[in-house]
């Protein structure tokens, strides 16, 4: 269980130590390697600005949402670049034509919400409930994101 009964005055230093690495992975999947650090630092800045006013019971979820929200803020101006960055992530050892190019493009073309859910379901193996808490949405919304992500990913098969 990741819920906490009441808000805790936790230091940003501790939060960074506990969560920065996993948030960096999440942010990289969201926006690609170039902007990941900016997104994560922004998320912590957002936490520092609002923690005393917000009824925060789950700082991990708070940080994940802050990352997602920051990515949405920047989406308009940077989405194309993120899609290019994500599609271009290919192991450097590969010297042949990338056989996964279509799948990479399909993953890169997902919306932020869809890519978040795909990451949590298929990489982190999180339950629907945990994903709903982290993203601050209902299980139904998680299912909708996943269904649409899957619909979009299937095109890689065709």
């Amino acid at each position, binding site marked *: 269980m990741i819920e906490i009964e009441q808000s805790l005055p936790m230091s940003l230093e501790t939060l960074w130590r506990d969560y920065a690495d996993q948030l960096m992975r999440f942010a990289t999947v969201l926006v690609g*390697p170039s902007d990941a650090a900016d997104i994560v630092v922004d998320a*912590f800045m957002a936490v520092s600005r609002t923690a005393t006013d917000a009824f925060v019971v789950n700082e991990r979820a708070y940080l994940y949402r802050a990352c997602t929200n920051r990515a949405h803020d920047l989406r308009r101006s940077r989405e194309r670049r993120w899609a290019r960055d994500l599609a271009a992530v290919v192991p450097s050892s590969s010297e042949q034509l990338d056989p996964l190019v279509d799948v990479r493009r399909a993953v890169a073309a997902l919306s932020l919400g869809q890519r978040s859910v795909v990451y949590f379901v298929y990489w982190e193996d999180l339950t629907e409930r945990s994903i709903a808490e982290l993203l601050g949405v209902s299980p*139904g919304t998680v299912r909708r994101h996943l269904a649409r992500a899957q619909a979009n990913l299937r095109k890689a*098969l065709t």
Partner: protein
Amino acid sequence: MNDNLQRDVHQVLADIVASTPSTPLNPFVAESAADEVSWGRRPTVASVRASLATDADAFEATVRELPRPHGRRWLSTAAVLIVLAAVAGLAIVVAARRTIDVRPAGSMQQSWMRLADPAGLFIASDHVDRVEVGTAYSSSNSAVRIAEVTPFQGGYVAVGATGYGFRSTGSVWTSADGISWSADDQQANFGVPAEAAPRATYGTELEHVATNGQRLVAIGNVYGSNPFYTLAAWWSDDGVHWTKSASRFERVQPDRASYPNVDGVIATSSGFIAFGEIGIDGSNDTTGRMWVSGDGTTWKDATEGLVGDHVRVAGIRAVGDRLLAFGSVGPSDRGRAQFWQSTDDGASWTTIDTPSPTDGTHTAVGRVLRSSFGLVAFGDAHEGDRSITGNPGPTAVLGGTEDIVEWISTDDGNTWQGVDTTSLNTADFDTITAAASGPNGIVLSIRRVGSVPFTTVVERTADGRHFQVIPFDAEQELDTLTSTDQGYLGTGSSNPPEKTEAADWEKPQSTSLWFLPA
């Protein structure tokens, strides 16, 4: 093929995760500036500079993103302008609303028309949340979504939400004709419930609505602190003034992987029945659950009649003096279609023989409609591996195929016969997203996947066996279909006009209204 996709998606995620840059040095490391930057305090440039003294680039990057007072003031100004523009728009709209022209079309030349939304009721604003700069939740994640529509006292009531997820506000729209809609101001009950959100951080979504003719019942999600999410019900006798039920639907069990979820609610001769699912102890799977209410004010568990785990009720329909339930039995990815009936208003249920494909396909009944040629049930059939990881998450579907299946009953649901739906299944994945039975037969909205990213096809049938395509905007999607005296009312999801190439199918999202004249 499925194994390949599973492996490929994993590999792509693995490659992306492997490309994660090194985590920057901890900019909040405690030294002299520790107190200043602790949780709950706004960091200053000085404190961040102190902690980043050895990393000049990171410092510059961090300082660049510190809050900008001018930017915030600009946003506030923008918010005022937006409000003024909205008020002005509304004034214009009041006159314009009566000018909507819906011309009946010939029955053989049916075509959809998109209804105007002059009041801007269903248009997502990409700026609403930005006004609230200063919270970590501020974002552009706005959306307007109609979840369900029901006829009520000669008019129509639609329920849904404005906003997104736990920042949303439950919303109700009313209409006398299904064409001109209004949103009333009496919806404070759907906003932030004080007992759940003392800091006004959390919101509400309405998902389902039903009426017995006199009373409306709505069921939705209330976001709180602990538990994060609960189910709640409201009732109303006019569609405008709503009262929240004091009953707690389902206690959130901390050891269960799934939240309780309500999939629908119906009116019966003795009250209301809500149906949905809850997590199974010690398992990542879910099982069906029912709740009953006499008048919508209080609810209690009524699951006893449904025996066994892995029972999934997709819907219930009153048929004569009994209830017909439908769904599936079996684990989420290996279920088998099933009908049940109850003659005591849901207190107990018995199964009805349900024909299913014998080729190992996994089936489920999704909806039942009454038509001039009997009861018609539509569902889906899955073939192949539905999960790419076997993880405990939601029903993971990446592989296999998905087809529409159909049953018809001419004796009020006592016996069912399978129907050939070959003509409906033209892509790898065909799913019905909405359906209604009305003056011109049954209208189905079908999502077809196989092209990029999906297309919507609307089909009509007058006998349940032959289908005719009705032209519709293939890039739109219908979420609900409701029959009216004059035709069919559809509500759909639409993305904002500024949608970029890398499509964002969810946010911000508006609702579009459609009408298919009889």
